[in-house]
């Protein structure tokens, strides 16, 4: 009897426990504070990671919190999976108040982000943003790029002050190796090939301990195609790009051009002769940087500060020396038509979400970045500590430029976001003083700014309908193209016609039409 009753009790307990476990809702109690709280989703930049756990610690945000009597809470996605976490955040509607993102890269563009109710239209709030408004009024070209075609303001954009802020990536070569092999800096596609071949042949002379790979790239995408999209190295010699570009007011797509074949065959030859680092295929940045460090790479594409500066500093006192090479051309004496050049607006910026209860405050805080005070704080940090005024020019202190343990960019990350992006105008003095500190960097910058880049497609925006169609088509196309790029590069496939036909079946022509329409609209825009 007792056992039966006990078993009944136990069964009931199990049932109750089970059902109640289903109805537990987690209530995340936010820290009670008297100040208004704003939550900001922003990625942790690799340059900030060594010095900060959270952007709250950054001097510029400490200043904002004091000045505006607000509590800022930062949400940092795990490094390396920012995209996934952004998408999950958007899909689950767990939005913070402010999102810091690459809005041009939002599937369907910024218009779509507004339609999806991820961010809000800022035009009605511009009265609270006098500084940005003033900047837009005095720089109509910037305003054109930072707004959608119907004039919607959707973000507090990252703005680059000057042309020299827009070029910071390109080809660099081990100068000491060139000297060892009695070579000059290559200028044409053929000379590049000869140089890489010479490095390959004399590998044991250059590095007796480890295998040498003549060519690689230090870049942050998952696919080698991204590098060529970004800086048009090699492909620019034929006057085309690997993605969309403009030729005489017509938007074109690189792979559909006959010249693409010639570019690909050169790359294939490089691969076949073992001139390309196999890690380039997976764009394993860590592995590639380790190889550069171990003297295993002869020439590579990389950042002016983050690669060139970094390794010149790290290898100080050794033979290691670098030279910035010009973008290769077909004939000697030409200047390449295309190189890396970003637009003053690159799509990075902070936007406000519909979840934000205190839009006015958020706008005020973000707008402060465009004031004189904000300019100094974001770019230079704290006067007397990270910078001093010399002849009216803010100048970084020795403590920043020659930090005992950190690179200059890591050191300044404790103060502001100048070395990546944010809602402010990036100073040209930053480039002069920090990005191109060394003579090698200054020379490289001279070479890399030579291409006129008139064929670059400006940052056009799409209507929501266009954007939906474009993202539909281009997602499929890009996945396929990424794969084919690697296959064509490694010679696993040589079927250029099949490649073009598949692109056509994936409706690339329709995408081109939409691009053309959007481009014409952009050019007419005031």
């Amino acid at each position, binding site marked *: 009897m007792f056992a039966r009753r006990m*078993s*009944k009790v136990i*069964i*009931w307990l*199990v*049932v109750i426990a*089970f*059902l109640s476990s*289903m109805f537990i809702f987690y209530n995340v109690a936010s820290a009670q504070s008297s100040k208004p709280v704003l939550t900001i989703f922003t990625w942790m930049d690799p340059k900030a990671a060594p010095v900060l756990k959270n952007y709250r610690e950054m001097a510029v945000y400490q200043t904002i919190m004091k000045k505006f009597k607000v509590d800022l809470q930062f949400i940092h996605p795990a490094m390396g999976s920012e*995209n*996934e976490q952004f*998408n*999950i955040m*958007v*899909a689950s*509607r767990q939005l913070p108040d402010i999102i810091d993102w690459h809005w041009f890269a939002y*599937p369907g563009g910024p218009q779509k982000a507004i*339609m*999806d*109710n*991820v961010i809000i239209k800022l035009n009605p709030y511009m009265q609270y943003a006098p500084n940005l408004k003033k900047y837009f009024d005095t720089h109509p070209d910037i305003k054109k790029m930072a707004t959608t075609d119907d004039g919607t303001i959707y973000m507090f954009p990252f703005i680059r002050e000057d042309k020299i802020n827009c070029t910071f990536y390109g080809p660099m070569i081990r100068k000491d190796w060139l000297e060892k092999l009695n070579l000059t800096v290559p200028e044409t596609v053929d000379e590049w090939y000869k140089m890489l071949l010479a490095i390959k042949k004399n590998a044991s002379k250059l590095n007796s301990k480890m295998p040498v790979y003549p060519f690689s790239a230090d870049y942050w995408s*998952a*696919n080698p195609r991204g590098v060529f999209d970004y800086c048009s190295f090699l492909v620019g010699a034929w006057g085309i790009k690997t993605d969309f570009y403009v030729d005489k007011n017509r938007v074109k797509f690189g792979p559909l051009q006959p010249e693409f074949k010639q570019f690909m065959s050169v790359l294939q030859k490089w691969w076949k002769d073992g001139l390309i680092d*196999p890690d380039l*295929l*997976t764009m394993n940045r860590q592995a590639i940087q380790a190889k550069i460090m171990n003297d295993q790479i002869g020439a590579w594409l990389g950042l002016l500060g983050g690669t060139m500066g970094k390794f010149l500093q790290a290898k100080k006192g050794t033979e290691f020396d670098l030279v910035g090479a010009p973008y290769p051309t077909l004939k000697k004496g030409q200047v390449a038509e295309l190189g890396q050049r970003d637009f003053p607006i690159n799509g990075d910026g902070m936007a406000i979400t519909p979840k934000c209860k205190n839009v006015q405050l958020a706008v005020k805080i973000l707008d402060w970045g465009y004031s004189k005070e904000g300019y100094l704080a974001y770019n230079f940090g704290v006067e007397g500590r990270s910078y001093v005024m010399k002849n009216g020019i803010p100048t970084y202190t020795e403590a920043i430029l020659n930090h005992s343990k950190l690179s200059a960019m890591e050191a300044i990350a404790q103060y502001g976001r100048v070395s990546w992006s944010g809602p402010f105008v990036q100073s040209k003095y930053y480039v002069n003083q920090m990005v191109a500190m060394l003579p090698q960097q200054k020379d490289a910058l001279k070479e890399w700014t030579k291409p006129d880049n008139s064929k670059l497609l400006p940052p056009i925006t799409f209507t929501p309908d266009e954007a*939906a169609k474009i*993202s*539909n*088509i281009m*997602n*499929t196309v890009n*996945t*396929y193209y*990424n*794969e084919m790029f*690697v296959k064509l590069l490694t010679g696993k496939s040589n079927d250029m016609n099949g490649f073009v036909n*598949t692109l056509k*079946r*994936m*409706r690339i022509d329709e995408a081109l039409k939409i691009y053309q329409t959007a481009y014409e609209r952009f050019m007419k825009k005031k």
Partner: protein
Amino acid sequence: MARQINSKKQGQSELLRDLKRNKNLYLMLLPIVAYYFIFHYIPMYGVQIAFKDFTPAKGILGSPWVGLEKFREFFVYDSYYVWRIIRNTILLNVYDIIFGFPAPIIFALLLNEIKNSVYKRTLQTISYMPHFISTVVIVGIILDFFSRDGLINQILKSLGILSEPISFMTEPGWFRPIYVGSGIWQQLGWNSIIYLAAISNIDPQLYEAALIDGAGRFKQAIYVTLPGILPTIVILFILRMGSIMNVGFEKVYLMYNPLTYETADVISTYVYRKGLLEMDYSYGAAVGLFNSLINFMFVVMANQLSKKFTETSLW
């Protein structure tokens, strides 16, 4: 067991009486039913987004219907991928069935021949240990071992078999062998347990009879042990067939990269990339639904087979 209810023939009173009589049994059933209802049936309401142009802003109900548009997109415009992901899904399973299914059976037969019980038990324990290691750790080990400068390449190099290291993880040709091989290594011991249990149920008199007829150890294994566990093998095989369109998402996702999509990209990973990474939720749902349909067909087929061979069936 509760008596079977046939509510068509007998009235509600019968049902009520049964409910009363077997109150506790129904009570025990309740959590399971609730679980399935809450976690498997309610979410099905979201499947409708496969036929809509879903945006999170408008919500499931607010998004406009587009009919079979998303399916058309998949089969017409993305036809390049359709056959590839279906082929990869099925092939990974087929290889797994061809190589992975017999392996634990053979292992169990071999283990059965070992007479020293301490040795046998130790061997068994060691062999099923890997089953308890999580997929993430296993794949981490695989990536380390098979990298260009990993253990495997080092060994092959020092033995003089290779001059240039093989990039195992970026060669589409290597993906399937590594995937299936590591799967066998991980699950061999665990899957052999059920066969060992079946073997221990075989009547010892059969072995004695075989011995008198002059059968050696090998013949005994072939003519007594194997037929003895055949029903178990058939049932497990049919169950395995039912999941031919399912590949463990995590393992593929952790192991593949754009260079091996050609052989590694399966339906579930494609749905993940399209649906979550590219935010095309409707498209992802449509492809997932299509996958479920094929799965359903396989289950029906497996059930028919099982009716034919084993007299036990789901319906």
